[in-house]
């Protein structure tokens, strides 16, 4: 199992897309072809966890060849973080092919071609270890997604597509500038992630320069996440996007943002990350609460889920910028969870749309009676999204929050407490939504005869629900590969504690109440520290 596996996984969808382009416009055949290709990709990607060396940290399955001259390489590799994100992607794509089975009947070929191209680009983003390559894939995700929204969306689809495109485009040029700047100042004259890391570490750049670079990367990722003030493209994009689009947008594209924050902002700029953590965490917490509150009052099912994403991704960012191993583990896990639970929610919303052609709550109500199975699936998705223990959502949220709570970044405790209030809000808006859709009397007579979900839809939902349960009870299986990756991405998790303890006094105070009474506390800290290095 050498690097070739990653190349296969990444480019099989592209090849498939090419094949689809050449196929005749026979919708049925096209659907099946797309399904087979995406499932094949998923099957292929299963090799990664199978042959992953869980003992080792760092990147595996690496492939590194010259691409353009000596400077730009085709360098791919997977570690515990990217591997699972890859699997998430390859899992969600066949699923979204299934949900688009009937809902897409016009320009089917283009749709699946775009879908597969999108998959290729997304996989590339998670696997690229050469910053240039990374940027190439990063931008490459933009077009297919924008087209998917714009070609297959609903009424205001064009506005949404353009908004999505411009938001991301404007933001990512800053990242490009930062990347080029780093390349220019990189003595090795290449775009290697590792090389960038140590040129930043030992390049002796002024902190001002590093701060600007940090921000350059940050803005690009913050828009994708999306972090609080930059989130307004998300609701529009989601509401207008076709179901498959929403699933992948929420399930994977947003993760690209958090992945970037973790891998690059924190991974390459440890000191800046610590230095900026407080306002970033503030934004994250605002996002958590703000997203929830706005979700609470949405009259539109999909908008509600979209805003809930803002809230959930807030947890992820909080976890990453808690700069603790636990918090970041939780954040990575939460990425996967959100992909699964929110993906499922969007699929369910889409199924409802296929039947009712609206997302407005006032059109629903009492649907539990005509669609019991659907209601059950929906309930499970909601619960996993609410973060009910024994479902996946809880593990992530709990680790994020407890990580943040113990973190020594400024006001860690405060952020954790505010963030924890998310559990209340989550319950509020999601149960509210569930009640609006399923409980009470049926007000619209046509709803009485709505068909329950059929076999295809069940098949498309089952994997996600099952994963939600498994990931809720068997998290160590994932952690054993995620944690080493996290540790090697942010070895400073321990270091920062030490130094930031010096310069954040209010944190010292927190400790003081304990320190005399409780050597245990200190023990824990050191333990985490050592845990960091190992």
């Amino acid at each position: 199992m050498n690097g070739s596996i990653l190349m296969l996984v990444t480019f099989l969808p592209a090849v498939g897309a090419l094949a689809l382009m050449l196929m005749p416009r026979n919708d049925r055949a096209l659907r099946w072809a797309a399904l087979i290709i995406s499932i094949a990709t998923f099957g292929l990607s299963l090799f990664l966890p199978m042959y992953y060396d869980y003992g080792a940290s760092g990147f595996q399955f690496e492939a590194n060849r010259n691409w353009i001259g000596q400077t730009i390489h085709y360098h791919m590799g997977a570690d515990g973080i990217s591997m699972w994100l890859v699997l998430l992607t390859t899992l969600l794509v066949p699923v979204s092919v299934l949900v688009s089975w009937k809902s897409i009947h016009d320009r089917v070929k283009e749709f699946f071609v775009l879908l597969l191209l999108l998959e290729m680009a997304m996989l590339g983003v998670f696997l690229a270890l050469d910053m240039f390559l990374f940027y190439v894939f990063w931008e490459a995700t933009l077009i297919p997604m924008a087209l998917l929204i714009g070609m297959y969306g609903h009424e205001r689809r064009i506005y949404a597509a353009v908004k999505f495109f411009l938001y991301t485009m404007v933001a990512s040029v800053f990242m490009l500038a930062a990347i080029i700047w780093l390349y220019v100042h990189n003595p090795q004259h290449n775009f290697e992630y590792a090389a960038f890391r140590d040129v930043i570490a030992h390049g002796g750049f002024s902190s001002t320069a590093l701060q600007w670079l940090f921000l350059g990367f940050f803005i690009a990722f913050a828009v994708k996440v999306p972090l609080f003030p930059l989130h307004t493209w998300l609701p529009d994009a989601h509401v207008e996007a076709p179901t498959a689009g929403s699933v992948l947008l929420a399930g994977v594209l947003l993760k690209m943002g958090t992945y970037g924050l973790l891998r690059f902002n924190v991974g390459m700029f440890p000191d800046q990350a610590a230095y900026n953590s407080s306002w970033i965490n503030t934004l994250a917490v605002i996002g958590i609460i703000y997203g929830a509150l706005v979700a609470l009052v949405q009259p539109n099912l999909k908008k509600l889920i979209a805003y809930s994403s803002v809230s959930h991704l807030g947890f992820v960012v909080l976890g990453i910028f808690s700069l603790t191993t636990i918090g970041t583990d939780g954040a990575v896990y939460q990425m996967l969870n959100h992909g699964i639970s929110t993906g499922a929610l969007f699929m369910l919303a889409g199924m409802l749309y296929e039947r009712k052609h609206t997302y407005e709550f006032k059109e629903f109500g009492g649907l539990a009676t005509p669609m019991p199975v659907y209601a059950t699936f929906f309930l499970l998705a909601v619960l996993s999204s609410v973060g009910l223990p024994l479902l996946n959502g809880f593990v992530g949220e709990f680790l994020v929050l407890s990580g943040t709570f113990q973190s020594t970044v400024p006001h860690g405790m405060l952020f954790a407490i505010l963030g924890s209030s998310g559990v209340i809000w989550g319950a509020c808006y999601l149960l509210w939504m569930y009640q609006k859709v399923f409980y009470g009397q049926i007000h619209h007579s046509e709803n009485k005869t709505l068909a329950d979900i059929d076999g295809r839809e069940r098949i498309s939902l089952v994997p996600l629900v099952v994963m939600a349960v498994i990931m809720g009870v068997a998290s160590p299986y994932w952690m054993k590969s995620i944690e080493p990756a996290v540790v090697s991405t942010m070895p400073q998790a321990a270091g920062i504690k030490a130094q930031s303890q010096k310069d954040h006094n209010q944190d010292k105070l927190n400790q003081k109440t304990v320190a005399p009474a409780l050597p245990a506390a200190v023990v824990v800290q050191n333990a985490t520290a050592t845990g960091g290095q190992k």
Partner: protein
Amino acid sequence: MNPIQTIDYIRILPELVLTVFGIIVMMADPLLKPGASRKGLGLIALGGTIAAIAATFCQIAWSARDASFASPGWFGMVRVDSFAIFFHMLIPAISGVCILASLEYLDAQNIRSGEYYALILFGTVGMVLMSSAVELVLIFIALEISSISTYILAGYRRRNAGSAESAIKYFLLGSFATAFFLYGVALMFGATGSTSILKIGPALGSNPGLLAIAATALMIVGLGFKVAAAPFHIWTPDVYEGAPAPIVALMSTGPKAAAFAVLLRVLFATTSSDWLPLIWICAALSMTLGNFGALMQNNVKRMLAYSSIAHAGYLLVAFAASNEIGRSAAIFYTASYAAMNVGAFAVVSHFGAGGERYVSVDDYSGLGRRSPLLAFTLTIFMLSLIGIPATAGFLAKYYVFNAALSANAHPTALVWLTIIGLVNSAVASYYYLRLIVVMYMREPVIAEAPAPASGAMRLALVLAAIATIYLGVMPGRVLTYSEAGARDLVPTATAAGSSTSGSSTFPGTVETTPAK
């Protein structure tokens, strides 16, 4: 003994070949029936461009055999170094594709005269010569050849008032600018007693006198006009709108590339770098004016005209970097821009149909449904113009900004220029995207479906698309050429590089980043 050797003829072989073919076309034209299609002549002209490329290969072979080939010939008039050879390759290729696009176009516009192709070929002679000329007078004449031929071609749709107007505008303003250029040449002659670029540089040294400075300024005016850089860009939209689409394809790339070649030769001849701030300003202005001007355009040709202004701006960023990377970036950019822009205008000229009826953005609505392939190719070109990765446009931009950031003269200023450029390219994505949006996301507004593209047009589109993708994915080979060209351009690249960091009154050259 005869001072003119074979090697000298080889030095101008492409020009000779093109001239010969041009004359053939010209002679053959009267033999054809007045009403008959001139496709045949077009094919001959195409053969001419191909032959020119072949001639260039012959030059390459020769230069490989004979080291003295790269030294000036014709009594120091031309210098066929790898820089010149790059453009000897590029420009005939551009003309060839434009001719391919014209074959169908002329019939569609029902223009029945073969001079068209002859003019393209002669114009190409001028452009090719511009890239290898090292003597201001020769440059001037070559410039005039290419300009005058494009003046005429711009006015080729004689039934159409717009075409005539664009011709007159282009002609008057062009001559106006040429006069400035010429005045500059005169002053340069006065300052140095010579007009050979090779002699000017040493004569001026790094601290030229006022005359020389004024001369440089005036020449920048003239050439800035030709490359449509702000503040001399103003003619572009009108001329491009009126001129026949394939000709726009040509003149937005061919003469531009040649003019940039001249600009490179002229600016980097003198080791003084007084012009850096000017170029900085021109670059920033061009990018901004171009992109913002295009935002609200509803006429695709005008929109692309503004975009070409903006792209001239990006290219000038590479000049502003004024280092070897910058020069090679500029050379590469001309090629990439040629690839995508020729393609885009080829699509426009095909879609425009008879009398160029359909040139507004809305006309493109639903093209994605009605002729997916055409839409797809146009999408490729648009994406490349936006600068989406895996297209020529992206790599070209990347190299330009890379050059700007790696410059060691005024780093801060260039960082800002880079930021301006990147933000601009983000803004620009809006109006390029608009075309994609209407093609794929709106329903058709015009009844008749676009006529199927002729074989030649298909070929032209495919070539342009392949070039765009190739330069975006596998640019290695072309890059090595452009780097070689950059090296030959200024034999003492290091000297130039160091001198760029010479004294200058450019604002805000504060080092924020102590690069180790």
